[in-house]
């Protein structure tokens, strides 16, 4: 019993000690709890007070997505408001390649719902190679309502495929303006890098297209406009929940051109099946009235990426439709060079107008006989006659008397051999031969014999039709040269403010009026009684002109050119320069018809049509446009 009591006593004491120990441990545990809660509190304080700004920014960034709104691209119209480039809205079927595992399988599957031609596939493939990786790319454009409905019903099957309403660029006049207006295309990596370099990439967020060539390229800055921004609240899936703020995009400005679409059309048709170029300029302003390079290409093909087959055809065609002949093609000017040579002679005092030479049918220099076109020669030839009948011998001699460096110095002032500065890119420089030029180009010295053929616009001479047109305009405008420009004014469609491309006089040549008069009179004579008389017979205005024929292949010594013996592509190019009305010129032009033979036959009638329309509003009668065979002598 007592033992039990003792035991109990021990137990009670133990138990009290135990309770004490337990409470101590419980207190330690509670201390631990408080410590941990303080730790949490510290963490909350750190996140919610100290780092609050940072996390708030992150939350806002989560929540808000900045969506660019691409501006509408400005349209391009001719001087009378005829639309040359505009936008239309259409639905496209687009694939985001990054979200698709098996692209081919998906496209095959899509093709069961919406028609996808092999051409669409090829174009898509090409786009895929060129695009920025995250883009959605169109596989089909211009969906019909029925196609949209069909896709909508089956869309759950197609991850990464969607229908979008997009604005498309369209060029209603197609190839007729392809070399002037140019075209846009999808922005490629190189262009993207360039935009980034120039700090313009922000304005191109949301824009898929950029001007590639022509006015679309050179006036990109005006046409593009300013990208708008929409602040959208998005959920974690990136879906827009609501719009928070919006700054509207500012549409690009419109371009109003100096070009006359009707005139351009007349020229284009007048060329018939021939290749060539024509540039018509208002000599008093430099405004370009017609700018044709034929053949052209359909710029609409390029808007959404051209498919490989069309691209190959365009690139490999022997007609080279992608080459802008007016701007980048360089040709010997042939006899159209003679009026300028005559002016040089007068300016340097090497000839007086009435001074005559005797033309025996050629010019002998250093053992070489430089043939005149007319067998037996033109007899006694003064300056007037030399231009009107296009006497080669006169200019062989003159070239020899002037020397190559004088010719070069004089011709340079007319802009031969230098870019004109026209408002589209890609201009060729051409070559204006001189001693220095030859040394630079060929590391060879100039031979005096080489000067002779330069006198008749052959030899190393090579200029663009644009340069030639500008030079004619300079004569027409009594020595004042304007920078050629295609755009008349840029129209801000919001403020309707017109930014006019002011006529920019480049230089005023120091030509004596009496010298100019001699040459101009002679050029009038060409169209009245000379090589251009036939083309301009019956014209109600007085015009001035000069024919020309440029050799494509050099003839052997003493050989006579016979068109039928030469393959088509080696035939001479026909040229014609003109301006009218002669007393107060409103239009100056240069025409080049490739491999068409004589300028008088092939090129001059085109010039006539252009001037008739421009001055008189006369529609061309369906006449035989560019003459086939020749019964004239060479000009």
């Amino acid at each position: 019993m007592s033992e039990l009591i003792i035991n109990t006593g021990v137990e009670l004491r133990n138990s009290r000690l135990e309770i004490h120990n337990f409470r101590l441990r419980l207190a330690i545990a509670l201390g631990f709890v408080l410590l941990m809660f303080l730790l949490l509190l510290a963490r909350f304080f750190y996140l919610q007070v100290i780092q609050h700004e940072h996390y708030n920014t992150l939350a806002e960034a989560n929540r808000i997505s900045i969506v660019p709104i691409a501006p509408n691209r400005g349209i391009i119209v001719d001087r009378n408001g005829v639309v040359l480039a505009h936008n239309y809205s259409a639905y496209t079927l687009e694939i985001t390649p990054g979200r698709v595992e098996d692209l081919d399988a998906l496209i095959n599957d899509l093709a069961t719902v919406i028609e996808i031609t092999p051409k669409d596939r090829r174009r898509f493939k090409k786009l895929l190679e060129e695009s920025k990786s995250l883009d959605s790319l169109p596989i089909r454009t211009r969906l019909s309502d029925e196609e949209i409905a069909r896709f909508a019903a089956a869309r759950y099957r197609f991850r990464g495929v969607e229908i979008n309403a997009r604005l498309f660029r369209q060029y209603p006049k197609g190839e007729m303006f392809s070399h002037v207006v140019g075209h846009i295309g999808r922005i490629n990596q190189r262009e993207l890098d360039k935009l980034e370099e120039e700090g313009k990439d922000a304005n191109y967020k949301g824009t898929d297209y950029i001007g590639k060539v022509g006015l679309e390229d050179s006036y990109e800055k005006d046409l593009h406009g300013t990208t708008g921004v929409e602040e959208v609240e998005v959920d974690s899936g990136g879906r827009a929940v609501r719009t928070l703020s919006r700054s509207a995009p500012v549409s690009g400005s419109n371009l109003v051109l100096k070009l006359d679409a009707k005139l351009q059309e007349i020229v284009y048709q007048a060329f018939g099946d021939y290749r060539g170029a024509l540039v018509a300029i208002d000599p008093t302003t430099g405004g370009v009235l017609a700018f044709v390079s034929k053949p052209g290409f359909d710029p609409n093909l390029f808007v959404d990426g051209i498919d490989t087959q069309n691209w190959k055809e365009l690139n490999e065609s022997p007609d080279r439709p992608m080459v802008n002949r007016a701007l980048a093609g360089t040709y010997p000017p042939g006899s159209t060079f003679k009026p300028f040579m005559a002016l040089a002679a007068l300016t340097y005092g090497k000839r007086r107008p009435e001074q005559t030479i005797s033309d025996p049918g050629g010019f002998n220099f250093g053992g070489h006989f430089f043939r005149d076109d007319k067998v037996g020669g033109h007899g006694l030839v003064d300056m007037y006659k030399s231009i009107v009948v296009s006497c080669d011998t006169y200019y062989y001699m003159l070239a020899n008397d002037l020397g190559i460096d004088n010719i070069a110095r004089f011709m340079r002032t007319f802009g031969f051999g230098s870019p004109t500065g026209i408002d589209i890119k890609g201009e060729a420089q051409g070559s204006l031969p001189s001693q220095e030029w030859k040394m630079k180009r060929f590391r060879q010295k100039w031979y005096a014999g080489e000067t002779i053929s330069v006198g008749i616009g052959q030899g190393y001479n090579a200029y663009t039709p644009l340069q030639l047109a500008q030079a004619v305009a300079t004569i027409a405008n009594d020595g004042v040269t304007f920078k050629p420009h295609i755009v008349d004014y840029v129209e801000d469609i919001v403020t309707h403010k017109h930014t006019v491309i002011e006529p920019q006089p480049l230089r005023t040549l120091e030509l004596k009026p009496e010298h100019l008069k001699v040459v101009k009179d002679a050029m009038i004579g060409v169209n009245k009684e000379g090589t251009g008389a036939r083309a301009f017979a019956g014209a109600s205005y007085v015009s001035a002109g000069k024919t020309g024929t440029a050799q494509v292949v050099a003839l052997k010594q003493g050989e006579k050119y016979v068109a039928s013996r030469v393959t088509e592509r080696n035939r001479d190019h026909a040229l014609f320069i003109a301006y009218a009305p002669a007393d107060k010129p409103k239009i100056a032009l240069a025409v080049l018809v490739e491999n068409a033979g004589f300028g008088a036959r092939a090129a001059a009638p085109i010039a006539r049509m252009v001037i008739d329309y421009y001055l008189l509003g006369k529609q061309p009668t369906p006449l035989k446009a560019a003459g086939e065979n020749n019964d004239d002598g060479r000009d």
Partner: protein
Amino acid sequence: MTTAAIRRLARLVTAHIDGPLLSATLLLLGVSLVVIFSGSNQNFTRVTSQTVSMLVAFGVMYVFANIPPHFLMRIALPLYVLGVLLLICVAAFGDVVNGARRWLHVGVTRIQPSEIMKIAVPLMLAWYFDRYEATLKFKNYIIAAVLLVVPVGLIVRQPDLGTALLISAAGCYVMFLAGLSWRVIAALATAGAASVPLLWGAMHDYQRQRILTLFDPSQDPLGAGYHTIQSTIAVGSGGIFGKGWLQGTQTHLDFIPERTTDFIFAVYSEEFGLLGNMLLLILFLLVIARGTMITANAPTLFTRLFGGAITLTFFTYAFVNMGMVSGILPVVGVPLPLISYGGTSLVTICLGLGILMSIQTHKKLVQS
């Protein structure tokens, strides 16, 4: 019936309810409904369904408050054995849900045996220490550790890291409160620290990567780290005063995952800010403080250990969940006690609170 009779009946009915604990619980449940409404994008069905769960949980709490602790001692061993058997059944033929084998079909419904173990393990250990109270030796701690490791090991394999963590914590609390010698605690801590590099060396690269991501979510911002990054942003952007109820952008634009369950604290913290967080910590502390008081005054070793384990486990729930949401602890699936949406954990927690009430209100009976 007279008013006196009514009063007596009322006293009889509420005799085993602990006022302070009930008040703190009710406040927390009120917060829960407010936040669930916001987190569910104002879905009344969710709020209603949670209210039903709360009523059930209250029923369970009431029942257990009225069960005297010595009855619990009687079921400790059978419940533990049943729990371990069920865990083995789960391992053998349980249902796989979300990649984890946790559920067991029992007739029409299915149960999650690991949830039972949250109560059964501390109950078992408390009963075990109580039984050998007079003669506690080191050996008993070893046996207790085995009793703990077996169910925890089974739960880790499911895998359910959160539950395993909570149960081990509960077991450890019991052993600590039962007087595990400080030297052993120190030795275990040293051994644990020493084994980290060994374990690290034995792991595969992908396992290491997974652990690194647990501690540094920015290593995998779109994968495992995404939840923590977004919840941390939610907490931080809440600031001192919060964005206001129903105004949390992280919440309502779907950036926070599991907005009404495991990550509900992110919603709360974003909308109510630092002040709200402090209020919530205070409410949790009230529950813990009351639990500690009850435990400190509990009459038997069993009730002291069990009550202590329940109180500290409640703390562990709250701490681990808030630590995970605020980015100082890795993401493990632990709900915020009394706040998170979901019936199971709510019932388990209320059951525990009911036991605390029982310990408090049956004290006098034992003493007398």
